C-alpha cells in the first residue's frame, strides 16, 4: 500500500469515523448540559422568543455599528478567509467529486485556476489573521495551543492543496497524499478543538437570543 492509498483508504476511514463520533459526542454533551430553571415570568410567548433566537443567530453575525471602527479590520479578515475557505471546499471539482461520493449530490465547479487563486488569497488572509493574533496584546493573552493548532491544521490543508493543484515540489501522487492526509488530520482534530465552532456558533447564538427574547430584550 502506497502513501496515497493509505491516505484515501484506512486514514480517511478512521478520520471520518472519529469526526462523526466526536461531533455528535460534543453536540449531545452540550445539548444535555444541565440548565438552570428560568424563574422569571416570560415577557414574550414561546413563538416570539423562538423567532428572537433565530433573529439573533443572524443579526449577531453582522458587525455592530457602534464598534465597527475597532472591530472592522478583524471582522473583514475573518469574513474574507471564511468565504475563501467555503469557495475552495465547495467549488473545486475534485472536492465536489469527494462530497458527491459522501452525499450523492454534485454541482458545477469553478475553474481550477480561479479556485487556486482564491486559495492563495485565503492563505494570505489567514497569515494576516495569525499576525494579528500574535501582535495584539489582549488577543495573544487569550490564545492557547488550541487556537494556534486549529489555525495550523487548516493552513496545512490549504498549503498542501495548493502544492497539489500547482504540482509544486514533489510528484503529484505524493502531494495529493499529503493533502488528503492533512485533511484526515483536520477531521480528527475538528471535534476536539476550536474548529468545532462551525457547529456551535449558530445554535449558541440562537439559544442566547431565545433566552434574551423570552426576558423581553430586543434582539
Amino acid at each position, binding site marked *: 500500500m502506497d502513501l496515497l492509498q493509505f491516505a*484515501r483508504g484506512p486514514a480517511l476511514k478512521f478520520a471520518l469515523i472519529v469526526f462523526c463520533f466526536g461531533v455528535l459526542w460534543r453536540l449531545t*454533551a452540550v445539548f*444535555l448540559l444541565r440548565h438552570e430553571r428560568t424563574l422569571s415570568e416570560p415577557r414574550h410567548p414561546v413563538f416570539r422568543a423562538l423567532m428572537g433566537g433565530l433573529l439573533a443567530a443572524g443579526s449577531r453575525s453582522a458587525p455592530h455599528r457602534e464598534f465597527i471602527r475597532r472591530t472592522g479590520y478583524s471582522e473583514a479578515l475573518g469574513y474574507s478567509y471564511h468565504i475563501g475557505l467555503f469557495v475552495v471546499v465547495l467549488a473545486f471539482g475534485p472536492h465536489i467529486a469527494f462530497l458527491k461520493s459522501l452525499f450523492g449530490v*454534485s454541482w458545477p465547479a469553478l*475553474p481550477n485556476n480561479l479556485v487556486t487563486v482564491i486559495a492563495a488569497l485565503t492563505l494570505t488572509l489567514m497569515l494576516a489573521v495569525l499576525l494579528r493574533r500574535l501582535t495584539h496584546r489582549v488577543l495573544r493573552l487569550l490564545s492557547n495551543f488550541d487556537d494556534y493548532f486549529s489555525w495550523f491544521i487548516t493552513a496545512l490543508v490549504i498549503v498542501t492543496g495548493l502544492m497539489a493543484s500547482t504540482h509544486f515540489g514533489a510528484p503529484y501522487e505524493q502531494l*495529493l497524499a499529503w493533502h488528503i492526509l492533512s485533511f484526515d488530520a483536520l477531521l480528527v482534530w475538528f471535534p476536539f478543538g476550536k474548529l468545532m465552532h462551525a457547529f456551535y456558533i449558530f445554535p449558541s447564538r440562537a439559544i442566547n437570543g431565545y433566552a434574551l427574547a423570552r426576558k423581553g430584550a430586543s434582539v
Partner: protein
Amino acid sequence: MPEYQARQTIGELLDRQGISRRAFIKYCTAMASLMALPPLAGRAMAEQLRAARRPSVIYLSFQECTGCLESLTRSFSPSIENMIFNVISLDYDDTLMAAAGHRAEAARDQAMKANYGKYLVVVDGSVPTADGGIYNCAAGRTAVDILTETAKGAAAIVCVGTCSSFGGIPFADPNPTGARPVSDLIGDKPIINVSGCPPIPEVITGTLLQFVTTGQVPDLDEHRRPKVFFGNTIHDRCYRRPFFDQGKFAKTFDDEGARNGWCLFELGCKGPTTYNACATTKWNGGTSFPIESGHPCLGCSEPGFWDKGSFYAALSTGTFGRAGNLTPRDAAKLGGAAAATGIAVAAGATALARHRRKVRMTDIQTADTQKEE
C-alpha cells in the same frame, strides 16, 4: 543464434538484406525522435547500431495473458519484424518460435551458452512462488527455476508489462499463486521495467533499441522505468487538461460534458497519478489513446493498479474495503454508526455526571441536616 550470425554486425546484415544506409538512418531518426533525443542522435544511433552485433534476446513468458506480446507484435515504429530481423536476434520466445518442446528448450540453452553474459532477457508475466511455484511450469520446470537460470548469464533484464514489472493482475489481492515481480526475485542484474497493461509497443521496442544502441541501462525512475517514456503523467500531457483547469468535467459517459470531450477526472481517470507515454506516443501507430476514445485512464502502468479502488471513482474520493470506493450508502452507515456511538457515549457521560452531582448534593444536604441537629 547461428555462429555466423553472431559474428556479423547489424550493418553487415542490413547490407546483405539490401537495406540501404539511408533507409536505416531514417529509421533510427524516427526512433531518436520517439525517445526525445536531439536530431543528430538519429545519425549517431545508426552508426553505432551498424557497428554493433545483434544481441541475443531470450523472451520468457510466465503468468500473463499474452497481451504484452500481442502489443509488441503490433509495433509500427520500429515494427517487430524490423526489430527481429535487423536489430535483435530473438532466439527464444515460446509463443512466436516455430520450434516446440525440447527443441525450443534446446534453443534457449544454446543461446545462453553462446552469448553468456551478453544476452538480454525479456520477461512477460509475473512469477508464481506459492506452493513451490507449481502454478506456472514449462518443460517440467517452474517459472522461478527458469527465470533464475536464464537471468544468471544475462546482461540485463527487460520486464515487459505490469505483471513482470510490479506483479500486475496475478499479484492483485488475494494473490492466490503468490505472484511476484521479477525485481523481487532477481537482485544482481540490471532490470528495466516497461510497465503497462499492455505497454505501448513503441515503448517496448524503443527501450530495447536504446539498450542495444548504447549498451547501457537508460535513465530510470524510482520504479525502474525509462524516464524518457515514463517521465510525465498522462494528465500532464493530456489534450483534455485545459478542461480540468477550467473545472469542466464529464459526470457520466453520455452527458453533455462527455460529448464535448471534457475532463474525465470525475469518471475515475487516473491520469494525474499515472506515468506513461500514452498521451504522446499513443496507440495503433499514433492513432489515439484510451482517453481520446472517451474512457478514463485506468493507471495500468502503476504498481498495484488493480487494488487501488474502483476504476470509475475519482482520485479525490476515498477507497474503502477490498478494492471498493466509498459510496453514499457506505458513508451513511459509517457516519451513522459513529454518530450513534458518539450520542450514546455523551448521553451516558451526562447521565453519570448528573447522578454524581445528585449524590453529592444529597451528601451535602445530609451533612447540613446532621449539623443542624
